[in-house]
């Protein structure tokens, strides 16, 4: 009997945490996980970062809910792990205990202003090109006006 009461309490807590039934269903279909936790921070793109150490063991205690639009791409359904910027990535993967809200990252030259997610498969993808020198140098005809 007590377990059912616990279960109901948890369910109600989750509904409340996700702002109602609509939010709950959106979370369920988008993230496939309806756990609630304390909101640690939001990055400048809108990704939300949560933590719950009490109820979940190591590995499941920190998670991110991605934003709906990043860098011009609609990411409501097409989310990608590479959307997480570097400073939050550090915390999310438990490399540190300190989130960037309490310990902002040291500015580095190689950190881009706007974080780019993985563009493979899109027109902006990297295509390898040869860097060897040309074997045959063609003759460039002289400019007509110069004659």
């Amino acid at each position, binding site marked *: 009997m007590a377990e059912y009461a616990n279960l109901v309490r948890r369910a109600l807590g989750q509904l409340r945490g996700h702002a109602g039934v609509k939010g709950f269903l959106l979370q369920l279909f988008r993230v496939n996980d309806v756990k609630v936790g304390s909101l640690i921070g939001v990055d400048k793109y809108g990704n939300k970062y949560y933590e719950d150490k009490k109820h979940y063991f190591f590995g499941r205690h920190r998670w991110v809910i991605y934003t709906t639009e990043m860098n011009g791409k609609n990411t409501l359904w097409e989310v990608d792990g590479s959307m997480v910027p570097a400073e939050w990535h550090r915390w999310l993967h438990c490399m540190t205990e300190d989130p960037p809200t309490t310990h902002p990252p040291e500015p580095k030259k190689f950190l881009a202003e706007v974080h780019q997610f993985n563009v493979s498969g899109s027109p902006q993808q990297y295509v390898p090109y040869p860097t060897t020198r040309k074997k045959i140098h*063609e*003759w460039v005809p002289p400019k*007509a006006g110069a*004659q």
Partner: protein
Amino acid sequence: MLRLPTVGRALAGAAKGSLAPSNTVRTPVRAASNMVEVFVDGKPVEVEAGTTVLQACEKAGIQIPRFCYHERLSVAGNCRMCLVEIERAPKVRTWLISRHIAFHCLIFVCVPCFQPVAACAMPVMKGWNILTNSEKTRKARIVIFLNSNHHPLCHFQDQSMQFGSDRSRFTEGKRAVEDKNIGPLIKTIMTRCIQCTRCVRFASEIAGVEDLGTTGRGNNLQIGTYVEKMFMSELSGNVIDVCPVGALTSKPYAFTARPWETRKTESIDVLDAVGSNIIVSTRGGEVMRVMPRLNEDINEEWISDKTRFAYDGLKRQRLTQPMVKDESGQLTPTTWEDALTRVAGALQGVQGNEVAAIAGGMADAESLVSLKDLLNRLDSESLCTEELFPTDGAGTDLRSNYLLNSRIVGIEESDLLLLIGTNPRYEAPLFNARIRKSWLHNELRVAMVGHNVDLSYTYDHLGEDTSVLKELADGTHPFCEVLSAAKRPVVVVGSSALQRDDGAAILSTVSTIAQNARTSSGVEEGWKVLNVLHSRVASQVAALDLGYKAGVDAIRKNPPKVLFLLGADAGCITRADLPQNSLVIYQGHHGDVGAPMADIILPGAAYTEKNATYVNTEGRSQHTKVAVTAPGMAREDWKIIRAVSELAGVTLPYDSLDEVRSRLAEVSPNLVRYDDVEEANFFKQANDLTVNQDLIAAPLVPPQISAKDFYMTDSISRASQTMAKCVKAVTEGAAAVEEPSIC
């Protein structure tokens, strides 16, 4: 039936044997009693008296290891690798035994004493038994592999693997030698040098420049130029082949390829008129280096620097796409269809003298004959070569008038050579090397009428003026006595001297000199005296054989509406000589002088990229083979002309290379008898037909006088960065082109 090469060659050989003198100097006929019998490892072998032990063993089939011996250089005997044990006939023993009996207190221990003998230097004596692999011989061949930085093609490494010991017994300190800077072509790593002195002997004997020598003695012996001097010779690249270790290597080729990665293709060089045989090494579709091939008749085993190092010009300034001049006058790339239809359209509208062609210096016989057939079908006879040749008198109708009739080998049998208006050192370096060889070994006397140039051997300079020629022909010059006393005279006139306005007069005067020399010397019928040395143009003889007119005067007199330039880069005809709206079509492989002038450009193939026939200045027909494919959209030249003919409606009757070659055989059968010299006759008739003209009193100056004129003479060498470095080094010194070394 005569087209079968073996049958034709056999018949040609039979015909040759009857009239021409033998061209073998190296093995003159000797009495049979001069042969000596020696034993090599017990096997009897008959050799001529005076051959060395090393040559006798080679005749028996056994190669004795050596470092400093080279067949074409004098014997040095300083490397001591060829030491062998000789068992002599034991006459000494009997004498000593009798001595012992007579003075029985004396005890003679008669042991056949072993003194190892340098096989390269010791001449054989009768009855010797040469042991090439006995224990004492093997002990004498000491090879200690001191170098860790050896060269992958190192003979030293090969021989020390074969003959050296397997463990080190070296307890002294090692030496290192500084690298010398001897020019932009030869990379020196003198620590590897084993002081075999092959390069020193090559430089002094064959190249004629005494730049390399030895300094110091014993362990401190260094080979170099002593002062910082460039090894200034047009044959300098051959020391790379001659050095048995990696002390002298090719600087442009360094670190570009490994020899086992490359494919070798046998071919012919067309950067000068000698037609030296080369091997083109390629890897991955580009030419990596050019090496010489052995051909006793033309280049022995040497090639000139331009032949060896100008291959990087094949990769720059190339024409890779057909181009057409658009309305604004700018050449833009286009497709083959477009270019060929335009050419065909232009050709369909012209007849007779309105269309003309100029053949350039590197045009092959196949494309020459296709072009001639095409233009002849359009009723035109205006096909010209860029180089002028006097057409008065016999002109180019008799082959003897424009060939090097004595052949390059014939110089070795001659005893007097008269050069007129030519600088063979820079015009045909291998011909000069042969002259020098005869001057050195066969007592050839050389005289020159022309600019006083350094030919690497001494000669009698008779003067520069054409008046000298007139005096020689009349018999009033003091040198005429020497000329008439010569047993086998040879007269060589340079083709540049014949390009002057009084070229016909020069040719007739020279012809008279040659005839007089022949009659007064009493030499036999087959000996040819008059020779013409073509300087830089490899296509001239083939073009004249096929019936091209020499010189562009015919075009200048009748300016055509359509001009076809087949690789013509000498700039003989410019836009100014042509009418206003004429069409110029350029077919070639480099964008040099002819291409910017053209309205339509058809990209052709260079000599390494086609199967082509070239005839050298002796009249010897040789063929190149495909080493790399032509770049981009370029195609073989005769195929382009065949395509043009089909679109123009006058289809040429051949579709494959064999059919073109049978067409060549129809016109002039010697063009497909490869590697044989087709000799020419009718000297007397040619002399009788000459026209008497006046000689102009200008001095006879060949176009290539100093070293800097040698390196860039045609479109390929002008595009080459290595040749540019050579010119810079020659004018400003070796330090000007020194680059920081990579290793």
